[in-house]
């Protein structure tokens, strides 16, 4: 290693030769991109809370999968998509009503998660199940999960591309979309299913509790940076993937600077996202301050 490279990053070489790191980079990266893109629409539709509820209930699926010996991806995805379908059937139109439905789903999700985690811990050998499900298991994802997870991510991206213009039109006003022949309800359902893919992927990687950060943080920062939908989506993706890959790198590295304990990758990811969000507000906050002083 070169003398002038920062002594703290002592693991750079090993980092790129570690297969757990490869899996984490691939699945974490795809979860990040999908969450960021879906997140822009989530912010536009004011459905952040629904996203969080779906993440929580998907973790019930993840913990159930552990119990029944199913692949975790199947558990996370199936539960989130079932809940998304259920939320649409209940058919809450107003945001307030939608929030109530999300709250009920969130409660049910956490309740089921508590039950399955208890059963996991008492009936299987997964003694760290709670930590895995609630805070993610980036470095312990089975390599065979990688290909299916990537396909699911591709499916979500295709949905985002297809629904791009209709979702924007609906965000302006649903009636405007209806008179143009769009089925607003069907598009809402397809969007919720896409949202459930995004949160299932990130719940599996950085954990249900923190998946909301990946869904909302990059999108919220990006729409402050750009006033155009395409660039906003690209910026959100760049923030999310930088945060995720940067977080994986720092977590891997922290193993050495914390003397073989290592800090959780989720912590680093969320911190980077939070910093990006703060930076995006800087220009507006400064302008507001200047206006307040000069006014």
């Amino acid at each position, binding site marked *: 290693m070169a003398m002038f490279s920062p002594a703290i990053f002592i693991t750079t070489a090993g980092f790129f030769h570690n297969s757990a790191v490869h899996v984490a980079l691939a699945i974490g990266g795809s979860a990040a991109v999908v969450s960021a893109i879906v997140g*822009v629409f989530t*912010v*536009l539709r*004011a459905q952040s809370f629904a996203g969080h509820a779906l993440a929580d209930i998907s973790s019930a699926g993840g913990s159930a999968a552990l119990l029944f010996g199913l692949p975790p991806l199947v558990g996370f995805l199936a539960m989130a998509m079932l809940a998304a379908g259920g939320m649409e059937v209940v058919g809450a139109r107003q945001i307030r009503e939608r929030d109530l439905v999300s709250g009920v789903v969130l409660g049910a999700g956490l309740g089921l998660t508590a039950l399955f985690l208890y059963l996991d811990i008492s009936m299987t050998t997964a003694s760290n199940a709670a930590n895995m499900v609630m805070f993610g298991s980036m470095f312990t994802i089975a390599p065979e999960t990688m290909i299916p997870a990537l396909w699911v991510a591709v499916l979500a991206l295709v949905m985002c*591309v*297809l*629904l*791009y*213009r*209709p979702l*924007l*039109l609906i*965000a*302006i*006003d649903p*009636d*405007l*979309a*209806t*008179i*143009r*022949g*769009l089925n607003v309800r069907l598009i809402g359902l397809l969007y919720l299913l896409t949202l459930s893919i995004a949160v299932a992927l990130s719940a599996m990687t950085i954990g249900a509790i923190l998946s909301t950060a990946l869904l909302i943080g990059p999108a919220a920062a*990006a*729409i*402050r940076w*750009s*006033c*155009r*939908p*395409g*660039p*906003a989506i690209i910026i959100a993706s760049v923030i999310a993937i930088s945060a995720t890959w940067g977080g994986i790198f720092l977590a891997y590295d922290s193993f050495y600077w914390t003397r073989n304990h290592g800090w959780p990758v989720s912590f680093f990811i969320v911190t980077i996202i939070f910093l990006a969000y703060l930076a995006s507000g800087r220009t507006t906050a400064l302008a507001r301050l200047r206006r307040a002083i000069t006014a």
Partner: protein
Amino acid sequence: MLTVDSLSVGFPGNQVLQDVNFHLPQGSFCGLIGTNGSGKTTLLRTILGLVTPDKGKIETGVGGIGYVPQKIQLDPFMPLRARDVVALGIDGHHLGVPLPSPSRRRAVDSMLAEVGATEFANRRVGDLSGGQQQRIMIAHALVRGPRLLLLDEPLANLDIRSVAEVIALLHKLVVEQKITVLLSAHDMNPLLPVMNQIVYLAHGRSVSGAVEEVVRSSVLSSLYGYHIDVIQVHGRVLVVAAVGAEARTTEMAHEPVHVTSIP
């Protein structure tokens, strides 16, 4: 062109419109006047096919309908420029991401110029003033070249100058392009210089015709079912219930007669 023929619309337990009739020839500028809750939005949404009527017929002629919904709340951080909103008027119902297209861009540019919005075309739409947002929504509604334009309370919450600007813009469109405009409002006064037709809604029923035929004490009294005075003060029209009329029925106590203008 727009013909509404014995139209009745209701929601469970609430008959909103009963036997509404009117005809607007092409190139009409028509005010749809009524108090809050009189059914203006319901009538417009029924014409658009968003609400199914209980009975009656609607004919809209050829060329499609443009629509500016009531009080759109655009999120200030929504990542859309004014020109993106107009472009979604062209192809917002298409699937997929739009590819760069010179003809689409030209159509958007000329529509923006038409409504006088070129100057703020590249600004975030949520940052625009109410009047500027209305112009953009009108451009969105017109960019596909409809022959009928429905606007739901486009003048509400605008300052006096923006009201005059939006009306002048709509008047220009009616005169130059012979578009038919049906615009709802709870105050008819700003529209008096430009509108040549009026549809007046009260208690679910309507009267329609030229302004001077409709805004008369005898006509409005029979529409409301009690005595109404039409008073002209300083060039403004006030529609008021006769003194004491409010006390006559409980219905009136809940729905006091509509004063179209409080100078």
